[in-house]
């Protein structure tokens, strides 16, 4: 029997909303008697972690990552993606379906799940495609995807352009209580755009992406969800207008949740000066004003989730013009550190972080027994030193790809242990 005792940490449990100095005991991968009594803990076979002066949080869940297997193993494999996640303090990741072939059927879904299980590292949940081959034309077999282990559906990377298809997807997925995640974008309005349409795109002389391309699509998807009484999760929101639309929809009682990514509250469009392709992302980096709104949204609960949108691309692919380089940056290893900056500047509390990075994703995706530190929950724990100083070096990146605009930055705060079902990864 495997036994783990985490001693003297400040345990932050978003389920009970408590933040207390106490011990946690994990037996056979399951959290036991977390009330503070130490019943049943004895013997030398118990592994002990001294968490004095450390924060003990429910294992972080990144509900939006791109592992590139199958199809693009030179960018990232399931194995390397999970190693990157461990380094970042994540006990669970959810991988988007835009692999090659696309995860729109039982066979691919099972392949990914089995491959992850065989790696034996962290939890991986799959997100299946809304439409076959992410083509935006035919609904994929959503019930079959759910039955074979997918926890949500999304065409992430592409929007569902056809409103009728989106309506059908929301209704059909609702039949099986399957969450729908929307990559909201008016792709024709984006057109050839490669960065936020603004002063910087003007000065760089490149095609801009108007912010309304995101906002129009979010508005449509939220209205559809409201009309059909369905549930929707809006991925990677980046603008002030998007935050306002989500806030109003929540006030109106629509069953919407929203996510943002660390780069949207950390960097502005200025990161693209010098034609820096490692800052080319979709949706694009915006302005200071947008960052402030995103922070407000995180603080007041409008935004439910912080996810990395970890999108690995090889150095060769990024070593080109802004126009030609693919969209996307890696994020698993910097997500927590960037979020802790919000903690240090007192925009969010540690309890907020536990919600944004663990409990809320678990709730949105119906992951039972995750997202909290409760008796009977799975022993997924992330132990964090919020003050540990470190420097982000390219050589230390675990991901196969190195496309990050944050390389060379100093950070304060880091995960020291990633514990998955009682299994300890010391960092």
């Amino acid at each position, binding site marked *: 029997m495997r036994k783990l005792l985490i001693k003297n940490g400040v345990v932050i449990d978003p389920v009970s909303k408590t933040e207390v100095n106490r011990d946690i005991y994990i037996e056979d991968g399951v959290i036991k008697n977390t009330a503070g009594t130490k019943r049943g803990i004895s013997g030398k076979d118990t592994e002990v972690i001294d968490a004095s002066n450390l924060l003990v949080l429910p294992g972080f869940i990144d509900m939006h990552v791109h592992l590139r297997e199958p199809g693009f193993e030179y960018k990232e494999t399931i194995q390397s993606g999970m190693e990157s996640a461990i380094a970042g303090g994540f006990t669970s990741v959810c991988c988007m379906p835009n692999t090659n072939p696309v995860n729109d059927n039982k066979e691919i879904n099972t392949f990914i799940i089995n491959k992850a299980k065989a790696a034996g590292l962290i939890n991986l949940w799959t997100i299946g495609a809304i439409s076959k081959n992410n083509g935006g034309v*035919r609904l994929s*077999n959503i019930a079959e995807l759910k039955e074979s282990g997918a926890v949500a559906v999304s065409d992430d990377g592409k929007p569902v352009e056809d409103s009728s298809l989106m309506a059908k997807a929301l*209704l059909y997925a609702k039949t099986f209580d399957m969450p729908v995640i929307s990559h909201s974008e008016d792709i024709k309005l984006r057109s050839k755009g490669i960065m936020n349409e603004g002063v910087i795109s003007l000065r760089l002389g490149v095609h801009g992406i108007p912010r309304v391309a995101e906002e129009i699509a979010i508005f449509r998807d939220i209205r559809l969800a409201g009309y059909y009484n369905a549930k929707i999760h809006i991925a990677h929101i980046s603008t002030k207008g998007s935050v306002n639309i989500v806030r109003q929809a929540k006030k109106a009682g629509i069953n919407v949740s929203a996510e943002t990514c660390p780069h949207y509250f950390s960097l502005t469009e200025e990161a693209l000066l010098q034609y820096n392709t490692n800052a080319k992302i979709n949706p694009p980096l915006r302005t200071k004003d947008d960052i402030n709104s995103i922070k407000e949204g995180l603080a007041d609960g409008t935004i439910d989730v912080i996810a990395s949108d970890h999108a690995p691309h090889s150095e060769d692919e990024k070593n080109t013009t802004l126009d030609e380089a693919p969209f996307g940056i890696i994020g698993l290893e910097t997500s927590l550190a960037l979020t802790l900056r919000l903690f240090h500047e007192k925009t969010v509390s540690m309890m907020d972080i536990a919600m944004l990075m663990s409990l809320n994703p678990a709730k949105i995706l119906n992951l039972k027994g995750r997202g909290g530190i409760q008796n009977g929950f799975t022993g997924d724990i992330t132990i964090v030193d919020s003050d540990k100083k470190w420097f982000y070096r390219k050589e230390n990146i675990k991901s196969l790809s190195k496309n990050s605009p944050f390389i060379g930055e100093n950070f304060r705060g880091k995960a020291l242990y990633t514990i998955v079902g009682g299994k300890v990864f010391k960092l």
Partner: protein
Amino acid sequence: MSYGKKDLISIRDLTKSDMLYFLETAKEFKKISLKDIKKVPTLRGKTVINLFYEPSTRTKASFEIAQKRLSADSLNIVISQSSVTKGETLSDTVLNLESMKPDAFVVRHYDSGAPYLVSRITNAVTINAGDGINEHPTQCLLDIMTILENKKDINSLKVAIIGDIYHSRVARSDIYGLLKFGANIYLYGPYTLLPKFIEVENNVKVAKSMEEALKDADVIIMLRIQKERMSLNFIPSIEEYRSFFKLTKDLMFLARKDAIVLHPGPVNRDTEISGEIMNSNRSVILKQVENGIAVRMACLYILLGSRSKTI
């Protein structure tokens, strides 16, 4: 008893006692079909035009046989061989046929509400044999007749209607008819195939699963799923529909022991319903077809001949 209206277009126009009158009459007519000589002179000299704008096997044959057994002169307009292919409108077609002094039109049309247009143009009786996704009132009557042959009373029975409710005129007529008899109706299917506002009707509930719909059901009405529904993304595939919405023997155990299974036909065997159930004694699908003739004889009799003649 009597029935005062000129037409039979919507089951919603009938009261419960109207429906009982139709069913009592049908019960009498059912006997005729069991005789050696299956013909009575009741509608001799009456002309009935069957105007079918959509393919139909059961309903068309059923109406035709009903007309023949009542000695009416019937005429089938086969749309594919008619002036409609030359561009004639529905109203012009009916106006022209009206000049030939028919006594009744039996109308099947792909557009909802078409029988009302026919009724406004003609003095003849108009019987709706299915209009678009709207109604199929004679199917409702024969379904209720079949249920009442197996159940003492419909009041408080749990009726599960499963499948493509949205496109089903049978479901709509059955719902409105059965509600008047006090049934508790549970609908289930992919939510893409459930009409959005259906729960405004009292005693109509959209179930959250096959299990909820079937649990302790007294009557199960399965509906046909059409392959064409894939093209507009109502369902992703027939294979997936089969896996998640087919009535199987295992699911039948959830229903009451004496539950009966209906289907308006044509059936996609082993797509919406397992062949095993169709072949079992729980299925009353062929009884429905048998009762269809009696019900249509009753409708023709009541609408065309009841004022002057007796059976």
